[in-house]
């Protein structure tokens, strides 16, 4: 096959997997808690800044992962307790409050790091030859890691007892409480996990993009569309949603151009919202 076509296929794979990784945390908070977290992108941004800090300190890149989990998880915990918990079941108010939060987090990043663009060195520079084409090694590794994380989460959610409890709690909270499950604590944990995943995604994209306080804005909207297309509350939905949104985006921009791809994604998202609002896997 034409190596360029193989490259484009890898590009599509890369686009889909990274988008899925970014949307995953949002899917968890939106799907399971019903919280529309407009500040999700800012958690991604914080993760990217963790990578920057590690990079500047000259420490191994992988150290950014625990740092991001610590920072994003910590902030997520505080946010859930102070801001999200009083607003459960008030989705519009949550929207406004998390919008305020996103503003706040951006400004705090600006106070700490300034507004300028920063770059994080690519941990695995260079290209690897795969199926007769050269592809950037770091991107290849990212594809693998993203698939691994999503598959692991998929497997964990599908088979573990904790996943079982989460499904039980989301589906029937009253019965879950009758069984002694601490629903509030689990909601907090879920939000923290969603924040951590965002931070992790931030670390992963940090070497690819300019790291700056406005980084998160680029991701949050597309992530919402992913959820809309895939439907809420299932890992499978996230995978399918990113498949449609990320795949369309990549395919259209490979075939026609970025502007057309962006239009297509918007139009498809609108059609889904309108005609199939419960997503691809609606049942009941």
């Amino acid at each position, binding site marked *: 096959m034409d190596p*360029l076509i193989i490259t484009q296929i890898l590009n599509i794979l890369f686009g889909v997997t990274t988008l899925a990784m970014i949307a995953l945390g949002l899917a968890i908070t939106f799907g399971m808690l019903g919280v529309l977290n407009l500040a999700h992108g800012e958690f991604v941004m914080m993760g990217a800044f963790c990578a920057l800090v590690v990079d500047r300190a000259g420490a191994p890149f992988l150290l950014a992962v625990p740092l991001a989990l610590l920072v994003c998880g910590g902030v997520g915990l505080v946010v859930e307790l102070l801001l999200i918990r009083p607003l459960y079941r008030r989705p519009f108010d949550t929207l406004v409050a998390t919008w305020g939060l996103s503003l706040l987090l951006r400004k705090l990043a600006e106070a700490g790091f300034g507004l300028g663009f*920063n770059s994080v060195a690519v941990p695995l520079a260079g290209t690897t030859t795969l199926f007769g084409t050269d592809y950037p090694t770091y991107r290849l590794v990212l594809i693998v890691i993203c698939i691994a994380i999503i598959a692991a989460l998929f497997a964990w959610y599908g088979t573990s007892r904790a996943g079982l409890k989460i499904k039980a709690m989301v589906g029937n909270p009253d019965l879950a409480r009758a069984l002694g499950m601490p629903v509030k604590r689990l909601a907090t944990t879920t939000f923290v996990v969603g924040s951590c995943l965002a931070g992790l995604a931030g670390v992963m994209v940090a070497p690819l993009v300019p790291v700056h306080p406005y980084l998160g804005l680029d991701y949050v909207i597309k992530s919402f569309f992913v959820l809309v297309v895939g439907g809420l509350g299932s890992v499978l939905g996230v995978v399918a949603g990113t498949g449609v949104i990320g795949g369309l985006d990549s395919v259209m*921009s490979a075939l026609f151009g970025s502007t057309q791809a962006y239009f297509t994604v918007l139009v498809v998202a609108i059609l889904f919202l309108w005609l199939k609002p419960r997503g691809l896997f609606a049942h009941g």
Partner: protein
Amino acid sequence: MPPFMIIDRRTMLAGTAGALAAGIVPGALRRAVAADGEFKIGLLIPLSGPAALFGPSNQGCAELAADEVNAAGGVLGRKIKLIPTDAGAAPAEVAKSVVRLMLEEKVDLVIGSHDSAVRQAVEATVKGKGAKSFYLIGNDYVWARNSNEAAKSYISAGGGTIAGEEYVPLGAPNRFEEIVTRIKGAKPDVVLITVIGADNVNFNRAFASFGLDKDITRLAFLLEENTLQGIGAESSGNLYSCMAYFANVGSEANQKFKAAMKAKFGDKVPQLSTLGADAYAGVHCAKALVDKAGSTEAAAVAAASQGLSFATAGGTATMTGRHVDKDMYLALCKATEFEVVKTFEKIASGQSCPV
């Protein structure tokens, strides 16, 4: 006639400041302003939004220029006072800020920064490199499209070919893997880049990570120090930028400028770039114009502009008609610094200092 002028600048990122302000202000303002005491200059700089990263540099350079002018006796004998105002917000907000400068602060003059077109430089690059095929990538808006139209005519005049042309939406989250792959397939000699801001960084990083930086030359038309910082050392190989100012320009004027900045701000010198340099030039341009015209009346200022010379960070600029002739530089990126490789002298820019 309004007793002020707008020194135009080409829009960059979200702050569409000067051009927009120029569009609205004449209708909104009809009141004469008392002209005694300090000579107030409204300084339109992006203080919020993504473009705000250029704010400190603009402000610092303008302050330096104001100090220099004041030390030399001020404008029409009056000391300059700078009033910074935010140009990073939505257009109506920016316009409002300008009006506020007029009505509330009663400023004499509003300046924004300006940069210059460099299309002639394409030709020089082409000839120097012996490049034959070109690939054009830009943001989907007027400036990039116009620049590329011009570039294309120079390329065909020089016997080159266009291997491809791409536009990505402005203000959307863009990915560049697909485009870089197409460039890889097209195998051009040179890529002309008119994407700006974060897109500029993303494109160049993706480009280098696919290993294309070794064989393909990149020439960017709006690539200054901050953006290069984002692109990073490992992705800036074989990347050229052509602009009216680089912090590393070796000219005597720039050494003096940099020393003066250092003296004024010490360790806290803001990142110098073409945008800051434009603010510096703007203040000097204003002084020269108003001093020569003897007033801020538009007609007098227009008459005074012919043949006017004023100090810029890169050297002395001269106005011909309503254009500014100034030196342009072609620089090669070395890690995250620019190294000037060629100077084009007295290039006439498309638009500047309109009254």
